[in-house]
């Protein structure tokens, strides 16, 4: 067939791209949240050129794009942990509260004498271990539904955070925390580097070892995985502990960034943002295959949307409406049925044209 020679370059590029993505299905799912992000970037290119300005001061990078990256850090961290939990077939509503407990405890301790940063970090890890073990045990060993088990932790955690501080906000006094939240390394904000590190480490652990495979197996079909010899309960417990660790880390970053802990508000409603980021990123809520990069893209999408709306002066009370429309748009882009419909429409048009 000599058709190849006569086809113009553009369809050939498309064909090459298509075969590439067919060979890498995990990347295929990534297209759509990236497309959503691309839409927002396009919008800003057209209406808000200043969006892309990057300035330097004292050797550090600043600008709306840097702001988005920095502000997205907490949701990104939460989303990484949430990805593993959702992939294992569960969900964790308590991440916001775990952020609050870790943040509140660390902030409180930082005002009570000289705690070295490493010790504070250790305390946060301990909090995460306890919270994660609590959730994991209830779900994996007591067989409670994840929503109920983590809802309990969500309520308990918020109460604990309030009782640690006596309900009052605390100002943080620890240079290590402040660096974590606001510092710069080689011009790049420290929290961003932290997220990169966490993603890389988690990615390596999941894809270079059997861990990722086990998690996906448990989420896909728990009974089958157990019969194949996977320690389903252990995997689930691990997922919840890991998620709590990410939440505690997010709490530390937020506390360091803001400098102040408001125990009732820290992390409030962030679990919803985290779950949204994960689902937009291509991981299915029922469990199974997951994509860490997808969750990161999802978190970026949410944050970009928020910042774009603020810059466009959208009044805060009706801002949810464009948010809703963008989410629907990204979903529709991901829908195979819509794409099939569009393809049919396009070929129908072509047939009419020819």
């Amino acid at each position, binding site marked *: 067939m000599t058709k190849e020679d006569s086809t113009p370059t553009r369809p050939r590029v498309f064909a090459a791209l298509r075969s590439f993505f067919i060979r890498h299905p995990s990347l295929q799912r990534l297209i759509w949240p990236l497309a959503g992000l691309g839409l927002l970037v396009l919008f800003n290119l057209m209406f808000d050129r200043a969006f892309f300005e990057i300035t330097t001061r004292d050797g550090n990078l600043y600008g709306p794009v840097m702001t988005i990256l920095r502000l997205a850090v907490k949701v990104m961290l939460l989303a990484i942990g949430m990805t593993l939990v959702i992939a294992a077939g569960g969900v964790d509503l308590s991440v916001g509260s775990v952020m609050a407990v870790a943040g509140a405890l660390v902030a409180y301790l930082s005002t009570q004498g000289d705690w070295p940063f490493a010790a504070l970090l250790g305390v946060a890890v301990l909090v995460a271990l306890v919270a994660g073990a609590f959730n994991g045990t209830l779900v994996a060993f007591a067989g*409670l*539904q994840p929503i109920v088990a983590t*809802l309990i932790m969500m309520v*308990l955690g918020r109460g604990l955070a309030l009782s640690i501080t006596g*309900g009052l906000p605390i100002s943080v006094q620890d240079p290590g925390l402040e660096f974590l939240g606001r510092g710069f390394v080689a011009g790049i904000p420290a929290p961003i580097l932290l997220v990169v590190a966490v993603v890389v480490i988690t990615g390596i652990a999941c894809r270079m070892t059997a861990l990722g495979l086990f998690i996906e197996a448990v989420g896909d079909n728990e009974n089958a995985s157990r019969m194949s010899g996977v320690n389903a309960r252990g995997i689930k417990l691990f997922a919840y502990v890991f998620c709590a660790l990410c939440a505690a880390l997010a709490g530390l970053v937020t506390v360091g960034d803001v400098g102040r802990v408001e125990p009732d508000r820290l992390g409030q409603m962030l679990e919803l943002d985290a779950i949204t980021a994960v*689902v937009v990123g291509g991981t299915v809520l029922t469990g199974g295959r997951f994509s860490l990069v997808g969750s990161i893209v999802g978190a970026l999408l949410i944050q970009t949307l928020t910042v774009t709306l603020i810059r466009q002066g959208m009044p805060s009370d009706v801002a949810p*409406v464009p948010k809703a429309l963008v989410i629907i748009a990204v979903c*529709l882009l991901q829908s*195979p049925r*819509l794409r099939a419909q569009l393809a049919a429409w396009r070929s129908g048009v072509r047939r009419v044209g020819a």
Partner: protein
Amino acid sequence: MNMIFRRQNLPLLVTALVFVVLFGAFSVAFKNFLSLRVVTNLFMNNAHVGIIAVGLTFVILSGGIDLSVGSVLAFATVLVATLIGKFHFHPGTAIALTLLCGAVFGAGQGFLIQSYQLPPFLVTLAGMFLARGLAFMVSAKEMAIEHGFHRALAGLGLPLPGGVAFGFTACVFVVVLLVGLWIAHLTRFGRNVYAIGGSESSAVLMGLPVARTKVMIYALSGFCAALGGVVFTVQAQSGNPLNGFGMELDAIAAVVIGGTLLSGGVGQVAGTLLGVLIYGTILTAPDYLSGFDSSWQRIAIGGLLLAFIILQRFLSRASTPGG
């Protein structure tokens, strides 16, 4: 009577037992708890969440989820208040229109979920944002309802001994429950819902009208959310775009506590009633305790939830042969 103790009734029985234990424990711990007034309060306080939860039960039974219910409730309250206050509609017309809007909104979500196979979580999350934003667009601030008919509705109720009245909102809740029970167990639609929840592909292969049923499920949920809002306006005699914040989580919790599985196919409307009562009872506990501040209130609620959910789990494990 062996029928009652059949295998599939056990979860419901266990949940009922948990409720009895809970209510009993509180009656012993708090004076004045075991009273008709408290029971009435339980229904009055949780009427709107309960109505939403009934609609939500069908969604969850089918394996889906609806996060928009709280915001649709808010939108409904604002719409009713604005139609009556600004456009001088009769409350009856305003209520009918609002219920219609709720159903259409839900159907829209159902259409997107069904036709394009979109994840229910994201579609109804978008619905939540959309309804909330629309509520603020209709009225950026709260709005009182001043109409004789509406006020008269608030006065309707069943007078009970002791000066207590089983008010309009509670009555509507009970009616919705009964209708929900009827739909779930005595109609083909109800059976289809269970079938879809059990296995959607099997339902399709069996020739059940899956597409139509799914859209109707979400329409029902939207309708119930709007009805919850209408009932809220009768209680509050006002509309407010801030209403219903976080109510979707309360409703989901009530449904799940009642024994309905989030994966779908398992659960009952009767369970939802028990879930609403259990959750509602636990939430009132801090009001009876002296010297509790905000932090201990949350800890108390969390602790009670933990205790009673574990009790429920333990009882159902113990009563099922083979663990």
